[in-house]
């Protein structure tokens, strides 16, 4: 078995991994390897032919491929080793990585630091409990996107889409442009799951109806899907008897959410937050194991790739600092700090990072969070006891759009933090 010593291994060559490698090299980390299972870098971005990427970071509209290309160029300009077509099978708590490919067999990487950037996977019909028969013609939106955009095949003629997350909306437009009929988009929640701009540009512009508080309860057919039954749901998302409607269709597209892909992390014994389904991390995106960091959708599902790239860079800077401390023989990782917890307060579904090292912040720190329900005119704040470390007003918030709260460098963390979203008091300044 070939054994390779590296300073940093990044697992996954999607947006988080690419940004992490580029930043790691800028920070001067020596031997860096990027392990990617696919033949090309870019991850899921490569199958996103639609534009709308990079609005924050590059202030222009790019396709997924173009956005990825910008980072791939950065990475390829460095001396980082790109190990493509290679699949990681196991990560051990002492930072060994076992990976395979066809030409070299089993590779053993002995790493001083690791950044996990494996992304996420899609939820399936069983996870949203669509009953009925198991036919062909039921696919996740990502699989449909892959078949159409990468492989050049259409998986049906008439589609029903369940889930109004961005990928569902994008695929509604894509399938329409390809000459397929999209009967409608169904959303179990009472508000859309995707960004407003996608509702307008992907549904309204193509007269595709969006049915809120409605879900698919059953799939019909013997071999191929022949139709679905949809039903209205009550406030607990339970189907309301008597509201069922049969729809004739040969394709059910599921855009019912994403789950961080953490099987490798679990195997290594990394602590997972049941809320986000990703690792519990500190402000440097370090996990519960010293020297193992995580970035992007493996931590929690972000909506904007810009944030994903940003977290890759945060993790890479964290890894650089960790390696530097280690080299200088200083205490590093968990033993060097006491940690304060960050809790999701009023109106907040989850917040990352979940913990912060006590002491003075040496640089600005970002909290990423999702609200529980749509609201208008709210104040987003980060409190430590009675002290408010950061505060900003938001005109409109909704669960699909991740919020960021930034606490400035210089703040001293000596107690647990709470991030919350409250209704704005009219005369509050």
């Amino acid at each position, binding site marked *: 078995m070939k054994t390779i010593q590296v300073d940093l291994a990044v697992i996954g060559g999607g947006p988080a991994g690419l940004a992490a490698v580029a930043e790691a090299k800028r920070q001067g980390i020596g031997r860096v390897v990027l392990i990617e299972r696919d033949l090309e870098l870019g991850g899921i971005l490569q199958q996103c032919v639609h534009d709308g990427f990079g609005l924050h970071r590059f202030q222009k509209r790019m396709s997924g491929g173009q956005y990825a290309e910008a980072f791939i160029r950065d990475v390829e300009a460095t001396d980082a080793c790109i190990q493509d077509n290679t699949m990681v099978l196991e990560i051990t708590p002492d930072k060994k990585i076992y990976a*395979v490919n066809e030409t070299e067999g089993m590779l053993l990487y002995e790493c001083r630091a690791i950044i996990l950037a494996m992304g996420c996977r899609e939820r399936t019909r069983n996870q949203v409990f669509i009953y009925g028969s198991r036919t062909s013609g039921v696919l996740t939106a990502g699989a449909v996107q892959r078949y159409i955009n990468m492989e050049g095949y259409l998986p049906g003629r008439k589609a029903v889409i369940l889930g109004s997350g961005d990928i569902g909306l994008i695929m509604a437009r894509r399938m329409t442009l390809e000459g397929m009929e999209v009967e409608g988009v169904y959303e179990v929640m009472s508000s859309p799951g995707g960004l407003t701009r996608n509702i307008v540009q992907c549904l309204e512009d193509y007269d595709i109806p969006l049915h809120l508080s409605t879900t698919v309860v059953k799939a019909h057919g013997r071999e191929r899907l022949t139709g679905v039954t949809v039903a209205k749901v009550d406030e607990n998302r339970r189907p309301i008897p008597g509201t069922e409607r049969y729809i004739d269709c040969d394709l059910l597209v599921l855009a019912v959410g994403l789950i961080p892909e953490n099987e490798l992390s679990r195997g290594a014994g990394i602590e997972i937050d049941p809320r986000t389904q990703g690792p519990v991390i500190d402000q440097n995106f370090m996990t519960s194991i010293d020297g193992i960091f995580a970035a992007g959708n493996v931590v929690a599902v972000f909506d904007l790739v810009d944030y994903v790239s940003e977290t890759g860079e945060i993790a890479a800077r964290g890894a650089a600092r960790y390696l530097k401390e280690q080299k200088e023989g200083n205490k590093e990782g968990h033993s060097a700090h006491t940690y304060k917890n960050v809790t999701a307060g009023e109106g907040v579904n989850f917040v990352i990072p979940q913990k912060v090292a006590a002491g003075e912040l040496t640089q600005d720190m970002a909290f990423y969070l999702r609200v529980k329900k749509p609201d208008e005119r709210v104040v987003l704040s980060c409190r430590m006891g009675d002290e408010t470390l950061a505060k900003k007003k938001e005109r409109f918030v909704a669960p699909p759009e991740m919020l960021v709260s930034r606490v400035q460098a210089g703040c001293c963390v000596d107690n647990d933090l709470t991030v919350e979203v409250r209704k704005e008091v009219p005369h509050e300044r």
Partner: protein
Amino acid sequence: MQELLANIKSDARFEQCSVSASISEDGIVTLEGSADSWRHVVDIGHLAASFPGVVNVVNHLSAEGVRIEKSDNTQRIREARKRGVIASADVVIVGAGISGCGIARELSKYDMRVIVVERNADVSEEATKANNGDIHPGHKAKPGTLKAKLNVRGNELYDKWQEELGFELVRCGQVNVAYSEEDMRGLEKIYHDGIANDVPGVRMLTKEELLKMEPEVPGDPMGGLVAPTMGVVEPFQVCVALAENAAENGVEFMLSTELLDIQVMEDGRFQAVTEKGILDAAYIIDCAGIHADEVAQMVNDEFYTLHARRGGIAIFDKRVTGPYHHAMSAMPRKKDAESKGGGYARTPEGNILVGPSAVEIPDKEDKSMEESDFDYAYDRGKSIYPELDRRDVIAMYAGIRPADYKEDFIIQMSGKVHGFIHVAGIQSPGLASAPAIAEMVEGILKEDMEASGRTVSVREDYKPKRRPQVQFRRLSHEEQDALIRENPKYGHIICRCEQITEGEILDVLHSPVVPTTVDAIKRRTRAGMGRCQGGFCQPRVVEILARELDKDWTQINLKGRGAYILERRSR
């Protein structure tokens, strides 16, 4: 018969039913008329079967509001006949489920030509693939039945099958837990049945013994029952292994081939009319599962009727390991009379499996998993493992049990049509009984052949051991490394969740029973069986199948005919 009819008449449940009944000399009751619901059609059938002296029940009752469409095959039969006799065999086996494949493999050791016809695109597509994989010990079968005898014998023979065929078999044992006096009485009855059936090792447990054996049993149990010979398998693995070994020994499998009709010729041979042409045969073995009664009707031997009992199962993410060593079951709170009640087990691959449910349905093809099936299966799991969380469900499916009204197996040479062997009503514990069923049918056939002056000799080149299959995921990293150096395709992971390599998929494509669909690849390799359910690997599997079978991507199906995945090329 008057007594039966009077019983039906006096039963308030059957007020709306209009039934007439006749009984033949050999004890077969035929029911005609109508009932107000399917449930009552089945109940009346069971009631008739329970009468003393009744050997079996032909149930022609119709149910109000239930129309079962029967396809008219006249035209297809005419077309098929035009193709003429395409092969001549000693034995034609109808159906490639666990019974058909088990029998085929048993007969493959003899010097005779055996052909298996199967309407689906793969073996194990019906009840075999959709059961819970329990190799039951035999203590839950009614003493004195054929089921009881074959269940215990079959369980015993599984070790030999496992050794020769190389599938996974875990002898986990089964523990039943009682929480009330009533539960205890229930378990005691099962215990006594177990003793009567000669089930090895079955015994009652005190509370202390139970908790010593399985310390995590929830609540306040009163005691339990253990049956150490319980095993679990992946049922489709067993079926595929049997089919492959049978094929290695010369059995021919005609997949995607529906049997349309059977004609009994003047010389006593059969012409089995399939959609691909006529098979001439000396013997026909009817292993057609839920459709076995229809096949028997093709030779006018109608003495039983099958009714479909659906069972729904849920599978959980491997990450959830559960606290138990044994397959577990608390006494069910609600239970269909004919079900063993289902329970909780871990498959050999380590997934928790709960169920199955038991629901009588009129449509033999309706494998739809309903919410009520899931709720039942989930409740069976939760009752013994309260921490089980529905969010960890990765797959749900339903299968159809082919039950007759005596609720026993029917395995015999036809009394009417010599050479036609019935293997019907093979519902649970059909999987556990399969080796004994194969043995019994082998005996019936051999005896008949020898009686007609034919010598039945074992082939010299018979190989009972199946070619072993590479399972990358089960090897050490060193072994994996060596394997990839031998064949680089083992270094290309196709299914991430289950760690299945391209090498393994190529291996099974060279199997003697070639898988041609995405589901067939899944059953043989596990690609697509993990938590993402093929979300990532399905396009890759389609690509490999298209490449290796020299087909366009649009011609690759998920399962049989009509289950296409891709409709056409994009613009």
